[in-house]
Structures are given as C-alpha cells and as structure tokens.
C-alpha cells in the first residue's frame, strides 16, 4: 500500500472539514474568562453557550489558570483566532498586559469585546459590556444610609486588595451612596473618611473575610455597618459577627447577586446586595459577535449590563427588588 495514502486521506478530510466550516458561514465566537471555576464565569459560559445555540453560532471557550494568569488568556486567544474565531469576548485578568494581544487580534479584523471589567485603557477593546461597579456600590450605600435611619455610621469595609479597579469602584460607589465624600468612578484608590472605622482586605475569600472582620471588630467594637466586596467576604464577616454576638446589630451590604448570596439575604445575613448579570453580559457579547459576522457592524463604547438592588426588607425612598426576584435572576447553583 502506498505509505503516503493515510496522510493524503487525512489531509483531504481536513480540507473538506475546513471548507465546510467556511461554507456554512457559521460565526465563530471565542469566550475567554479569567478562570474556569469561579461560578460567575461558569454562568457566563452557560449564557454564552445558550445564546450561541439560539443564534447558530459556534462558541469556543477558554480561560486562564487563575486570577491574574495573563499568559493563559493570551494563548487561548491565539488558539481561538487560529481556529477561525472572528469575535473574542474576554474578561481580562490583567487589564494592561492583555493589550498587545488584543491589538494584534483587532489588526487582523477580529472584534474584541471586554466583559465584566475593562482593559486599561478601556478603549483597548472595541466595546465593554460590564456591570457599572460604581453604581453597584452607590445602590448599597444608599440602602445602608436609609437603613441606619439617621444613626451615625461606624463603618467597616472589607475590600478586595489594593489597586484593583473593581474593588475601588464598588468601595467608592458605596461611600458616594452613603453621602460621604468619595473619589469618582475612574479612581483606583480606596476612598477614606472619618466614618470608616476600619478598612481591611478580604481578597474576596470567605476565610480571609472572617479574619479581616475579626481584626476590625477588635479595632472598632461598636461598628454598625459593614461593606463587603462580594458575598463570600460577607459570609465571613457574618461569621465573625456571630461569634462576637453582634450579628443582630450590624448591617452587612455586598455586591454580586450569586445564588448563595441571595440565599444569605433571604436568611437575614446580608441586608442588601447589588446583583449583577454575567449571563446577560455573555449573551449580549454573543449577539454582537453574530451581528459582526453578518453585517460587519461593531459595537462600541460601554454598555451597562445592569445592576439591581436586592433586599429582604424594602425601605422607603430606596428602590429595591425582593429576594424572590433575586433568586430567579441569580447565577450559580440555585
């Protein structure tokens, strides 16, 4: 038998397959998240897959190995473009380091949309579909102010870690919502104020949030309001307060709207949380990709994917939705 026969057959098959993909004109869209495992991104992938199926697009997914793994995202992007992706949706792990790769992609005519958090600068991508994290902070700040009903606030903030834009936006938005002087939405610095009795870093982790809250309680035993960067940190804060016997007198507010977090709101552990919509971000991204493949039209600028205040106890003057609504819209395992 001709020794080259198997190779020839293989080459022929590959060409036919490639040709069929081209011939179908099926838009290929790549989604690159920060990690594979964070439920936020899992939900994003689900939303993207559903939208892709509905619109007849082909979805490729990839991610870095961990938060901050830029190289993994770069590799994923290169592989996806080589596989024919004309649109890349990405939640950048490193807002600056990813820029050169994105530029290369855009120079090739690939549409690149940032999801959930922007690149730095934000016009590094064609468009941004994300939560307005500042607004998310403002909403819970407003609720907290109203819930305090005039009592002087002694605030503990459990932040992410220094320098992270999302951490700064939520923190500063919260200060704004509380009516305190706050840096604007573009700032990466955490705003300070006399009412902030203690600021600590939780790294968005439950155990670290608990430790941070315990330490802050030592510094400010009479704190009555806790802002947390996300719901795992809030769960840790609640634990610490419960151990100190203070959970009934302290208001905890948070951001995220994951299903576990909404459950905690329902159980009274978290007073209010700003819910964000990863599913929507992904679906919008897929739609934009399909549109681009069909008409060549690119989206631009920043599109707010929405944030809703979820609270168990409604308060006059603050617009919030109830836990039932929050549960229907939540992301993660219900």
């Amino acid at each position, binding site marked *: 038998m001709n020794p080259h026969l198997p190779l020839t057959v293989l080459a022929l098959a590959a060409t036919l397959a490639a040709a069929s993909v081209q011939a179908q004109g099926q838009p290929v869209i790549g989604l690159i998240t920060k990690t594979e*495992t964070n439920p936020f991104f899992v939900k994003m992938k689900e939303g993207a897959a559903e939208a892709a199926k509905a619109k007849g697009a082909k979805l490729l997914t990839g991610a870095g190995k961990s938060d901050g793994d830029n190289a993994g995202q770069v590799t994923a992007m290169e592989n996806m473009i080589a596989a024919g992706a004309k649109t890349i949706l990405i939640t950048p792990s490193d807002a600056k380091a990813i820029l050169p790769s994105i530029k290369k992609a855009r120079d090739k005519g690939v549409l690149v949309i940032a999801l959930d958090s922007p690149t730095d600068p934000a016009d590094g991508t064609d468009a941004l579909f994300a939560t307005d994290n500042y607004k998310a902070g403002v909403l819970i700040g407003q609720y907290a102010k109203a819930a305090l009903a005039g009592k002087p606030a002694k605030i503990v903030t459990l932040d992410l870690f220094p320098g992270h834009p999302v951490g700064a936006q939520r923190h500063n938005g919260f200060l704004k919502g509380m009516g305190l002087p706050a840096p604007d939405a573009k700032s990466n610095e955490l705003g300070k104020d006399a009412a902030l009795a203690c600021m*600590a870093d939780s790294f968005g*982790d439950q*155990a670290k949030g608990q430790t941070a809250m*315990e*330490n802050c309680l*030592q*510094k400010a035993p009479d704190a009555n309001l806790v802002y947390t960067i996300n719901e795992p940190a809030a769960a840790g804060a609640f634990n610490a307060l419960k151990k100190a016997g203070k959970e009934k007198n302290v208001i905890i507010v948070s951001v995220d709207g994951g299903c*576990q977090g909404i459950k905690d709101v329902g159980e009274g552990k978290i007073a209010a949380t700003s819910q964000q919509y990863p599913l929507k971000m992904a679906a919008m991204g897929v739609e934009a990709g399909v549109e681009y493949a069909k008409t060549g039209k690119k989206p631009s600028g920043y599109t707010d994917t929405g944030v809703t205040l979820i609270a168990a106890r409604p308060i006059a003057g603050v617009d919030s939705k109830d836990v039932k609504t929050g549960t229907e819209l939540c992301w*993660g395992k219900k």
Partner: protein
Amino acid sequence: MTATVTAGAAAKAPVAIPWGQLGPFIALLIACTFFAFTTERFFSGENLSLILQQVMVVGVIAIGQTLIILTAGIDLSCGVVMALGSIVMTKFAVELGMPAPLAILCGIVATALFGLLNGLLVTRIRLPPFIVTLGTFNIAFAITQLYSNAQTVTDLPPAMTWLGNTFALGGANVAYGTVLMIGLYLGIWFWLRETAAGRHVYAVGNNPEATRLVGIPTERVLLGVYVMAGVFYGIASLLSVARTGVGDPNAGQTENLDAITAVVLGGTSLFGGRGVVLGTLVGAIVVGVLRNGLTLMGVSSVYQVLVTGILVILAVTVDQLSRRASR
C-alpha cells in the same frame, strides 16, 4: 589525644547559640511589643486568643510541612489538599447524610491518601518532592473544584463545627481548635525529640545515604512522613470547616505558601535535618500577629506582605550564618 571524654559542654567545646531557634521568638517579641505600644487593643487576652484562632488552620498544616521539610523535601500541595479534605467531609455529611465523625474520618482519609500518593512518587519513582507536589497540587485543586462544582457546602451539622466553639479562660474566649493545635504541636515535638522514629526523620533529612548504610528503612521513614503530613492536612481541613462553618473549595490556596513561610520563619532549614517544630508554631503566630496588628493600625495589607517577605529572608540568613559560625 588521650584525655578522657566528659559529658556536657566543656570549656573548649563550641557552644552554639541556637540563633536559628531563638530568632522566631525574638521576632515575635519585637512584633508584639511594637503593636502593644502603637495600638490600643492589641495586647488584650481576647485579641491574642483571636490571633491563635486565626492561625490554627495554617498552624496545623505547617506541622505536616515541617515534617516534610525536615527530610529535605517540600510540599506545595498542602493547602489545596486541605481544601479537598474539607469538601469531602462536608459533602459526605450534608449530601450523603453520613454521621459527622464518620464524614470527618473520610475527609482525613482523603488527605492522607494524597499524602501517600506524594510519598510513593517521591520514594518509589524517586521524583523530586518539589515537582511531585506541584503536580498533585494541580490534581487536588481540580478534583476539589469538580467534586464541589465550585460551590461552598453549607448547613453543616453542629458536630462538625464544634472545634470552632470557644470556652472562657481568664477573661478571653479560647477556641477548642486552638487547644487541639497546641496539643498536636506538643505531641509532635515530643515524638521528634524523644523517639527513635522521630530522630530518624532528622537523620534522613541530614544524610539519607548514611541512614541507608546503618540500616534505617529510609524509604519507609519518608513515606511515613508524607502520610503523616496528609493526616495533619486532614485535621486542618476540619479546623477550617469549624472556623468558617462551610466547606469552601476555594480555601487553602494561599495556605500552600503560608505553611512553608511559617516553617521557614520558625527556623527549620530547607536543606533538611535541622529545626524545631515549636518554631513553626511561633512562625505561624508571627504572621498572624503582623496581620492583626497592621489591621489595628489601619495599615494596608500590602505592608504585611512586605514585612513577611523581609522576615523570611532574615530567617534564612540567620540560619545560614549561625551554621557557618558553629563550624
């Protein structure tokens, strides 16, 4: 050379001041004094007992890590194996309805099995521990995420979180888990000092060829150390569950390096054969004191990381210099 031999240190015998062992205590003393003067609440029984609770998970992980580092090995997977243990025990209790003690045992068995895996790869296949545990770190992490579906496990039976409860002791609230941690440290300290098996751990770390030549079952000692470490990671996972009240699949990721930091700060040599396990406890407490004190001072957590890094370099330098001086 016919002078008679005497016991104990004579005039000319070099009395090496164990700076390597005193160092961590001195660092702890300095840190505590500093924070006692610069903050109001640092030096209270309640705050100090809190710090012990905050370090109890890393503290127990670091016991296992100390044993491994004493044999000139290292374990980069300790934190995520701990997370795996906590997921196994909480899921078994909540989803499979297992009684808490049995579920806890299963969690510890799971972590011990990982220890066994590490040990077999090191002793039978003769792979360097750094590389082996780098691999098992990834495997354990993936298994934990897949099995838990990246969700925390909540609504645990009270028996599981009992170690997180506290009892009153002289004006402070001490957690049962803290008592367990201190008990474990004392037990291992005794074992390493007073039993042949413990001394063999030091010998294997100091000169494995020598131990083979004198008939010590070197491979068995190494395997035993890795399995023991796995058991300690399992106990740490119970403490983690007890402290936070949930099984968290994302726990333990910084504990991998935190445990190694505690061991190094405690004066144990990364080259094996030297170190006192109680030093590791001091090292873990120093890190907890820094974190607590800096928060009380209102200083950003970045400085805690900076100071820890400086202390690690100091600790290793002091160890090296004191060894050179004793020659």
